[in-house]
């Protein structure tokens, strides 16, 4: 193994072993925390999810699923935005 390659590998291993910075953890937690909020809301007010009892519901009632909107926003943030933000934070360290 060449010295350069070994050095690079060591750096990568060290970086992986380092704990995530608090800011990165916060960013990663934002989406799941929001999604959990939506799930809790759905559990507390299941009648807000008309998809659970769709018979006889009109188009707008079936479209309006607010707890699912909250979950969707949280998941989209976590999957689409958070990884890039954390990557940039790690790059700055």
């Amino acid at each position, binding site marked *: 193994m060449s010295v350069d390659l070994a050095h690079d590998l060591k750096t990568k291993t060290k970086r992986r072993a380092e704990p995530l910075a608090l*800011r990165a953890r*916060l*960013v990663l937690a*934002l*989406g799941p925390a*929001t999604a959990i909020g939506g799930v809790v809301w759905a559990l507390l007010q299941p*009648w807000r999810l008309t998809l659970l009892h769709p018979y006889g519901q009109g188009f*707008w009632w079936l*479209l*309006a699923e*607010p707890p699912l*909107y*909250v979950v*969707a*926003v*949280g998941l*989209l*943030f976590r999957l689409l*935005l*958070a990884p*890039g*933000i954390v990557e*940039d*934070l790690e*790059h*700055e360290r």
Partner: protein
Amino acid sequence: MIVAGLTPKAEWVHWWFATGFLALGLLLVAEAIVGRETWGRRPWRRYLWPGLLFALGLSLWPVMTFYTNSMIHMVAHGSWAQVLMLAGGAELGLARGKLHSQYWRLCMVLAMVVSGTALLVHEQQHWFFARAAFLHHLLGWTIIAGAVFPLLQVFRPRSVVAAAGFAATVIAVSVMLYSDRDVAPVFGHFSVYAGVQHR
């Protein structure tokens, strides 16, 4: 009449806007956590929340057009649409580098003061008439009070307190919009003139 039958209930529209404000709030919280420099490291990310703000303003035009239950509602929705687009446009201009002066951020202050005032003015009922009335009053005062944070950001752009306060205001607005119901009580109060309560 046909339009009146097809348009969604006001509470559903409030929930859709709540979702937009929740997304906006998450973006602002993330920016407040990592700071403007890190946030702007990827150029497309700089346009995210100003673009969303502009889109929210744009989306208010159909609301103004179809929810014409009173003149004051039309004026309120129209003024929100204008000031949100102005604020979003100014922030987009700053992000792109077309605008340079920090004072363009005062457009956000204007947007919040106009929005809050419009919310208070177009609510004709008192606080405890029903939940919608209560939330309109609460939203109005919250947004007006929250305008202090973007004002602070004009003079202290790197202030974490100002950024976090602004983000928290937007999240609070989102929660209040999600809490809206067309005909529902608030803290046990429900006027007999409010109509027939539904879920």
